[in-house]
Each structure stands twice: as C-alpha cells, then as structure tokens.
C-alpha cells in the first residue's frame, strides 16, 4: 500500500503540471468599485473563479465551463466567497449582507473593470456565448451587489475578508463619491477595517500609530538615535538635536510625498547606504571625542537622508490618508517623534546609570559606539554593494546642471536656517533685556548657543 502511495505521489510530482485545480492559488488580484448612490451602495467586484474553491462549476467537457448552466454556481460562489465575507460599514455600523443583483463570467483578457462605467455596462451586458471553449480555471467571476444605506454622504469603511481566496490577495479598489471624487486603494491580504474616507483625526490617529511603529521597528533609525545621544544627554542639547532631526526628516518626507524625490532605481539604495553611513559617522565621532556642540547641524543633514528612508515605508499607505495628505504626513512625523521620545526616555537614564555605576563615561561611549559602528559598517558595505551595481553618471553638462540645482537648494536652505536663527536670537536678546539680563548679542559670544553654562 505504501509503495503504491509512494508511486502515486512520485507520479504526481513528476507530472509537468505543477499547479493542481483545487490548490489554493498563490496570488489573486481582486478588482472592485464602491459607489454610494442615494440609499444604495453599489459594489462591483471581479475575482478569478479558480480562487473560489468547493464550488461545483458545470462543465461542458472536463475543465471547460458550461456557461449556460453556470448561473447558480456563480451566485453561490459570489454569496459564499464575497457577500458573506466582505464587511462594509456606514458611519461605523456594519451593513447587512448585500443583495446580489447580477453575476457573470468574463474572459481573462476583459478590460472593462478599468473604469466603473464600463464595468457596470459589462456586468449588465450580453453574457458570453456557450460556443466559447473556456477553461473554467481561467475565467473571472464578476458580481454586482447592493447594500441599503442611509445616505450616500455617509463615511464608509471596509474589512475585505477576502484573505482565504489565496496565499497572497491584492484588492484593487476604487471609491466613487457623489461629489465626483475617485479614490484608489490597493489593499493586501487582511488589512483589517479600512476607512475609505477618514475624518482628519482618524487619518491622523492611523498615521501617528504608523510613525510610532515605524521608528520602533526601524533598527537603523534607532541606532542613529542612540549614537546621537550617547555623548549628548543634557535636556537642552537633546531637544536641539532631536528637533533638528525631526525638522529635517519632515522636509524630505513631505517632499517625497509630493513627488520631489528622484525616481531612479539607484535612489533607494543610495538613501539606505547614506543612512548606514550616517550611523558609522556618528559612532566614529563619538569614539574620537569630537566636539558635539554643533551636532544639531550634522544631525539636520543626516535627518534629510532619513526622511527619504521614512518615505519608502510610507509610500504604500498614503492611500489611507483620504483627503488629508498633509495631516497624514505630519501625523506620521509626530508618531516618529513620539517613538523617539519613548526611546530617549528609556535610553538616556539607562546611559546615565551605566556611566555612573558600570563603566566610565568616556570608555562606555567608546565601547557602545564601536559596537554600533561595527553593525552599521556591515550595513554600509551590504547596501553600498547594491548601490555600486549602478554606474557613476558621466561627468558632463547634464550632471553639472544637476549638481548646480542641488547646490542652489542647499544654499537656499542654509540661508533660511540662518535667518531663522537670527530671528530666534533677536527674540532671545529682547527677552533677556526685558528681564534685566544681558542680551547674548551684547556678550559678543553666543555662550548659550554654544551649549556652555
């Protein structure tokens, strides 16, 4: 018996066909439209039929769908796999199971789901004729469902629940609102409840959480932060350094969201390499005992790089911002900031305790920084190796033009920073004079700015 089973298994494995009919597919793309109209929410959805398992599809000959007899099976598939699984919410209240208005079979080449109007026309249009030789595993099931709603002005949310369709499920969905807006989403696997038109505070909350989670999961950002604070643990300096980092990464993060960043394939590896380089640099600076009073400045420069790094993480989730893109970006930054503060709240006292009771500050700084530098050096070589697969650009007028444009941006940014500093000092000077003290300007040296007591 075992021998027979082994032979059978060997035959199956040796077969040229690797994918079996009722296997769970590796990868399925679901296309959908949601359109609230009056008291109805219209849901058009397209799913590969082969992903809907345990449905007896009528066949004209083995493997080929019998379209004229397929209606009942299609309705069952749409009900079991979609209508009962997809959870839609109106103003946070779950809508009932929808009415199934129409189902049909479509060719894999059909493009009507690129637009809502063509999708609707297609579902209501003429069915495929039965003289089509169609392998049932290769067709789409298109379904039109309708949910009763209180108002098309309501805010809707969806929990797709389509995870069982395949090992990887991608849902490409568009919401068409009564005011003519068209919002696109790409959801993966089991995204949970997705608010399709979030209020600003809902978007903000989501992105604060996202930023908070990202900084805590981003080990390279955390090591950079650690390097920053090992020698700088006084509150005032910490505030300056962390604020500088935050402002800088906010600038590039927001710039990326508005498509200002380069789109070349080399750019992500460059940013990742620079992030690793920033950690190595900070760690080495700690080891050699460089003067850290100007650390906020170099932090600012590296913060610009880290901002691009954050933008790569944020790119796919900006769809959840609804109409609150800027709010989402600022909230993400706020989340990052909160995460940083949490880390600092744990790390700074720990460093203080360590330097007081375990190891002398100088030696401790060197040891910790060396460990961090070692790790970051490995990242630097790995990421640099990937970057070096891309060639250096030719030294020509086009390259010089790019360099000059970048230089203009840097000088302009430096000018803005200088003006802001000037204004801050001026105000500080006024405040000091009003309180009867010396204005920093009158001392001839910016002792306070230099971080001296």
């Amino acid at each position, binding site marked *: 018996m075992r021998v027979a089973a082994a032979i059978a298994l060997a035959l199956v494995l040796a*077969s*040229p*066909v*690797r*994918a*079996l*009919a009722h296997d769970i597919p*590796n*990868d399925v*793309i679901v296309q959908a439209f949601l359109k609230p109209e009056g008291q109805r929410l219209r849901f058009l959805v397209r799913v590969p039929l082969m992903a809907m398992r345990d449905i007896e599809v009528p066949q004209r000959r083995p*493997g080929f769908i019998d379209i004229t007899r397929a209606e009942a099976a299609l309705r069952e598939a749409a009900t079991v796999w979609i209508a009962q699984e997809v959870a839609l919410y109106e103003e946070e209240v779950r809508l009932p199971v929808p009415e199934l208005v129409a189902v049909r079979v479509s*060719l*894999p*080449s*059909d*493009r009507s789901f690129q637009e809502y109007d063509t999708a609707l026309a297609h579902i209501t249009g003429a069915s495929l004729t039965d*003289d*089509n*030789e*169609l*392998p049932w*595993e*290769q*067709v789409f099931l298109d379904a039109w469902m309708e949910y009763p709603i209180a108002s098309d002005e309501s805010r809707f949310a969806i929990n797709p629940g389509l995870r069982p369709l395949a090992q990887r499920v991608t849902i490409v969905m568009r919401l068409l609102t009564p005011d003519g807006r068209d919002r696109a989403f790409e959801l993966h696997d089991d995204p949970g409840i997705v608010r399709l038109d979030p209020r600003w505070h809902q978007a903000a909350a989501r992105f604060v959480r996202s930023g908070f989670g990202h900084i805590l999961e981003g080990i390279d950002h955390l090591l950079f932060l650690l390097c920053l604070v090992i020698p700088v643990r006084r509150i005032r300096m910490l505030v300056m350094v962390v604020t500088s980092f935050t402002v800088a990464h906010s600038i590039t993060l927001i710039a990326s969201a508005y498509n200002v960043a*380069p*789109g*070349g*394939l*080399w*750019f992500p590896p460059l940013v990742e390499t620079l992030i690793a380089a920033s950690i190595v640099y900070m760690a080495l600076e700690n080891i050699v005992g460089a003067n850290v009073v100007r650390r906020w400045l170099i932090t600012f420069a590296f913060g610009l790089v880290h901002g691009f790094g954050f933008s790569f993480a944020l790119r796919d989730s900006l769809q959840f911002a609804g109409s609150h893109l800027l709010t989402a970006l600022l909230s993400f930054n706020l989340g990052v900031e909160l995460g940083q503060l949490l880390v600092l709240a744990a790390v700074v006292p720990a460093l203080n305790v360590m330097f007081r009771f375990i190891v002398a500050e100088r030696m401790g700084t060197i040891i910790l920084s060396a460990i961090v530098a070692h790790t970051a050096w490995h990242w630097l070589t790995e990421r640099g190796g990937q970057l070096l*697969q*891309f*060639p250096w*650009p030719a030294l*020509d*007028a*086009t390259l*010089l*033009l*790019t360099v*000059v*444009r970048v*230089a*203009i941006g840097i*000088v*302009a940014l*430096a*000018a803005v920073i*200088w003006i802001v500093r*000037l204004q801050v000092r001026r105000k500080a000077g006024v405040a000091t004079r009003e309180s009867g003290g010396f204005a920093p*300007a009158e001392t001839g040296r910016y002792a306070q700015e230099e971080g001296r007591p």
Partner: protein
Amino acid sequence: MARRHLLIGVTFVVAIGILAVAEVMLQQAVTAQEGGATVRAPRFEVDPLWPKPLPNHWLLGSTIGVWVDERDHIWIIHRSSATLDENEKGVELKTAECCAGAPPVLEFDAEGNLVQSWGGPGQGYEWPQSNHGIFVDHKGNVWIGGNGGGDSHILKFTRNGKFIAQYGKAGVHRGPTNAEGLSTYSGDSNDQQNFGRVAKIVVDPRDNEAYIADGYLNKRVAVLDADTGKMKRYWGAYGNKPDDKNLGPYNPDAQPAQQFRNPVHCADLSNDGLLYVCDRANDRIQVFRKDGTFVKEGFIAKRTLASGSVWDLAFSRDPQQRYLFVVDGMNQRVHVVLRDTLEVVASFGDGGRQPGQFYGVHSIAIDSKGNLYTTETWEGKRLQKFVYRGLDNVPRRPQGVVWPRT
C-alpha cells in the same frame, strides 16, 4: 555685529546669484548639446535586479519566447537542458550539486518572482523537438510553437499546463536521411493541416483567430480558428501565394524578395487591426490587413546579413501604439521604430553579458505600464526587464547600454 550679518547675507545672495547664472548657462549648454542629436522617444532603463534568482539550481537554456499576460505576469519559454553544456547540468548528470535545466515554461510576477513552471513531453501531445515562441491568449490559454527538425505543429495548454489541443502533426514532410543519419524535412507553405517550424503565435480576441508566423521551414503567415485550429487563410510576402523555393542568401543591394525568407519570425497585431510580420533574414517588417492584403514594408538595419535584423517586435502602450520596439539579435539592440513610417528613431542595448547588454536578443514583450521584457537565445540564455521612464529626449545615435539613472 550688524556688519557681520550683512556680510553673511550678501554672501548668501551672491552665492545663489552665481549658482543661478551657472544653472542658466549649463541649461543652454545641455540644450545646444542635445539639439538635433536627440529625438522625443520612449526612454528605458535596465532593471539589473530583475528577475529574482531561480530556485532549485535551475538554469535557463536558450530563451526563445516571452509574453506578458493580462495580469502583467511574464511568461517565457526556453530550451532548458537541450541547450545547456554538460558542465552546466551537474545535478542532472549527478556529477555536482549544481545545476539543472529549469522546466521549459516559466511564469514570473511583476516583481520577478517565479510563480509556476511546467512543460515538457506528456500524454496526448507531441512536445516540440525545439520549442519556440510563447503566447497567452484572451482566454488565458498558452500557445507554443517549435522550430526543431520535425516540428510541424502547435500546442495549446491551460495556464496551469494542462494540455488542451495540438494543431498539426509532428514529423510531416519528412525527406531523405542526410549524411549524418538525420531526417531532413521540406517546407510546404500550402499545407492546410500542418506547419513548418512555427516561430510565434498571436491570437486576435476580436475574431478569435490565431495568427501563426510559419516559420523556420515554411514561408507564410497562417490564420486559424483559435478554438478548432482549422486553417482559414494564409499568405506569403506582399500577400502573394507562398512559394518554398530557396531564395539563396539575402543581398541588401538586390530588389526586395517577393517571398519571405526563413524564418518568418513574428506576427503581431496592432490595436487598429494591422498585422506586423518579421521577415527576419530579409531585414524587414511587412504590414498586412487581417485578410492578408499587403499594406507596406520597412527595412531595419538593412545591411545586416546572416540571421537578419528583425527578430520580434512589441507595440508601445499608448492608445495609438505610436512606436514599435524591434529586437535585433545580430546587432544586439532594440530599435525604436515609428509605427506610422517604420522609421528607426532610436535604439538601445549593445553586445555583452552584463545587464542591459544582449547576446542573441530574440523576443520582446511589453507590460501594461510600458516596461519591456527581452529574452536571449544562443548563449545569452536570459530574461531582462527594461523599465519605461516615459517619453524623453533620447539620442538619435545608438544609446548603448541603458543603465539606471535619474
């Protein structure tokens, strides 16, 4: 102090001023440099990190077909172990831990992950001696041709590799055995049941008809009912009745041949219902209506001898399909051709084995985003992706390797 601030402020203003002047001058220099020497055309960059490595120590053999399906999945067909050297297949020969030929049909997703693999001899059909060309039709079926000695048939499978149909029989028109003891075959471009080493197949979803580039032995385009395989019509160069007479080697200075030379290497349909045929060794594209009426022809790298310059083509993704991308396995480049005039406006690629270079670039296909995929035969044996970077000013002269840049 105010003087110092003034100095710094003036420095900033002067620096920005100088840089702005430099920017204007450099912009003029760049414009002058490009003036006349550039043309507005699609620009591409090779993606050196695509596709991802194959599992199981698999290697590709000569890779002689590529297609992109409706899901932007990339399908290739290759000749696997039959075209691998002994030192490339240690696993198969049990001499080493690496490597082995991959199954002939491979499907990749847009990220370059291998999704599935299948193919090879099986029950109910005759797998080609030398498979050639792959196409996924509007019903999701996979079509395969073959240019081996006795390959005079076409195969159709489901997407998962289940056999559906075979049109034509293998081994027809067998001639005498040659000095090496191998069978010889003769072409019959008027045979309505069988084919002569089919190079490529496309299916027209509007009329459910398959267009066959037939081929390496025959000299015609044949049109079949895509469900039954029944031949509906066929024609030769200029729409003439095909003739299998040997035309001898191609001479670029002679009058254009009135028949195709072997191989008739591609047949592709445009959105406006024109059929573009690769007459590879004649260095030309011939354009027909669906009924076989000749429309026009255009020559590409006309002085190319031997295997010719027009190997395969793909249409750009704009609704008008303004450009053709023609792969040229002799000159090792992709020609960018205006579809309207069949004029070459740009080209990219060069000979070599690094990303962006070619060795026997054989087949080409395009995805919904306009990215190109090429496969290489002979010892090229690979699949490459060229990322579409939009319309841009590109050099009229050959661009060479299109490395990634901004």
